[in-house]
């Protein structure tokens, strides 16, 4: 009953293109946004900000970047972590070279660097396809992480080889660095993630999104309906790497506070990939659902034994966590290869026609 859409008529195509043509969806989104912008920041503890809210947003953004390349354009990438690194190191260089640069701008610019490198590694995609391309993205992964370690200019010749986020103010408020408040950082991240998500929704539902999906579903046919394959793939690589780069900059500057090269190694890339798979490839919403699940899982695993008063070794929990994620991936693929997002879509369909079965 709640999700009844009868009576909501569209009288022109323009209204059919509203972001949420169904009134109930709009209501649901308003509720979620209200929670994200008002309720959570008021209620959340320091712990909740740092272990749940901020990382969920940042990981979801990174997964969104990957999803554009893999879920929409069908180009499997295993090098997401390294591109996050490019964003982070670029941002670090920008704020140390131009200390007065607005952090929001610096993060926006740092995405351009990873986009440029993404384009360079995207060039082979016209000749190298499928799994071969996936392996080729590993070349970017390993080479870039090696570079972060060996090219000391990147970390300003620190003895530690790590980058340390300086204290950065924006309009008189400290937004990054050890003294920044979690709430400010949360709003900062939330703003950027909201804007990029909206832009991503727009780009995926129009001509470019259709081009990507066409390339994904059947690249030969796409070429024969007039799509320039190289351009479509390069746009996907560029846009994807841009978003991933921005998420990397946020990752270090508004969450971790410091980073060593190996932070951006394979495990990070795979973490992002899991979020995208479990959430649903070819969906925007899925990245958020996947990120919530993957980020919350270890937290929940820690809480459950505590609630029962049982002492469990933390490394054992870590192993169980890995096992569960592995099993979850398999389970999601078997139950619904398109992930949590599709499961939600099916539930929504059912709600719309409820109480009737069809």
């Amino acid at each position, binding site marked *: 009953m709640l999700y009844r859409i009868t009576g909501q008529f569209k009288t022109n195509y323009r209204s059919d293109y509203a972001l949420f043509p169904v009134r109930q969806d709009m209501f649901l989104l308003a509720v979620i946004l209200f929670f994200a912008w008002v309720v959570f920041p008021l209620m959340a503890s320091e712990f909740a900000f740092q272990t749940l809210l901020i990382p969920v947003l940042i990981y979801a953004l990174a997964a969104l970047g990957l999803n554009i390349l893999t879920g929409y354009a069908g180009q499997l990438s295993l090098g997401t972590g390294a591109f996050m690194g490019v964003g982070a190191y670029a941002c670090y260089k920008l704020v140390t070279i131009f200390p007065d640069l607005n952090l929001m701008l610096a993060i926006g610019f740092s995405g351009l660097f990873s986009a440029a490198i993404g384009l360079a590694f995207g060039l082979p995609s016209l000749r190298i396809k499928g799994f071969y391309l996936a392996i080729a993205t590993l070349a970017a992964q390993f080479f870039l992480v090696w570079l972060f370690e060996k090219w000391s200019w990147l970390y300003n010749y620190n003895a530690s080889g790590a980058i340390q986020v300086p204290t950065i103010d924006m309009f008189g408020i400290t937004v990054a660095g050890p003294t920044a408040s979690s709430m400010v950082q949360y709003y900062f991240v939330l703003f950027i993630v909201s804007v990029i998500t909206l832009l991503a929704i727009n780009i995926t539902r129009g001509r470019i999104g259709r081009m990507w999906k066409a390339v994904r579903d059947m690249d030969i*046919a796409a070429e024969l309906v*007039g799509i320039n394959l190289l351009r479509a793939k390069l746009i996907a690589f560029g846009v994807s790497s841009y978003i991933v780069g921005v998420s990397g900059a946020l990752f270090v500057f508004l969450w971790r506070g410091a980073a060593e090269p190996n932070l951006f190694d394979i495990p990070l890339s795979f973490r992002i990939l899991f979020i995208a798979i479990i959430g649903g490839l070819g969906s925007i919403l899925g990245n958020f659902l996947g990120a919530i699940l993957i980020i919350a899982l270890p937290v929940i695993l820690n809480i459950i034994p505590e609630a029962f008063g049982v002492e469990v070794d933390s490394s054992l929990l870590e192993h169980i966590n890995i096992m569960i994620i592995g099993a979850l991936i398999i389970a999601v693929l078997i139950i619904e290869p398109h992930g949590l997002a599709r499961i939600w879509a099916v539930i929504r369909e059912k709600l719309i026609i409820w109480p009737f079965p069809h």
Partner: protein
Amino acid sequence: MNQPSIQSGIQAGVRADDGIEKGGLLLQVDNISLSFGGVKAISNISFDVKKGEIRAIIGPNGAGKTSMLNVINGFYHPQEGKITFRGKERISMRPHEAVGQGIARTFQNVALFKGMSTLDNIMTGRSELMKKNMFWQMLWHGPALSEEVEHRTRVEDIIDFLEIQHIRRTPVGNLPYGLQKRVELGRALAMEPSLLLLDEPMAGMNLEEKEDMSRFIIEVNQQFGTTIALIEHDMGVVMDLSDRIVVLDYGKKIADGAPEEVRNNQDVIDAYLGVPH
């Protein structure tokens, strides 16, 4: 169902109006030869397609028909020969450029984008006609939306014309074969081609579906003036639909002419009935 909307709805597209008069030479294929490694797929074939006609290419399996279409729309690059399309001579080009010049096609084995809806599939046919760049796309409201709505209107006309309104939102992977073929025709029409290449448009269809498809082909040809070159194995359909027929066998042209001539040509009969070479 009668469709008063057709004449007013889909206008003969921008590119369909190619400045060539009906009956004028639209496509000329000269001495084309194509081989893969040592295997000759096409040897020394020449024929032409006139503006406004329905031209059939027939022949036994493996005669090189599909390869010929692949050459015409730039997917294969012939080793020898030249192609003149709308007065412009070329040896080969990238397939997406062929679309830009007004050549659209459908495929022997349906080549739709299975993860997308009928509507989106047909909309991809207009990719090449939509010009708003990435930044407008990201903003969406404004020029990109206006462009989207304008092209959606055209696509909806095609959907009406092909009588597939009810499956507009259905992912094409879930559609029966006959409807997929129809969606594929819709996607090709959305490109507003001046030359439409159809590769076995009726393969695997039942009688009723074949009749529908024949009707669509004739209407496309007569109402929009789109020139059509088609490959088909159903001889009844070919003889009824086409103005002229070219017959290939083992990569060579063995006959070319009106349906009556071809039907009575001894080489053609031999090729189909099988005479030792």
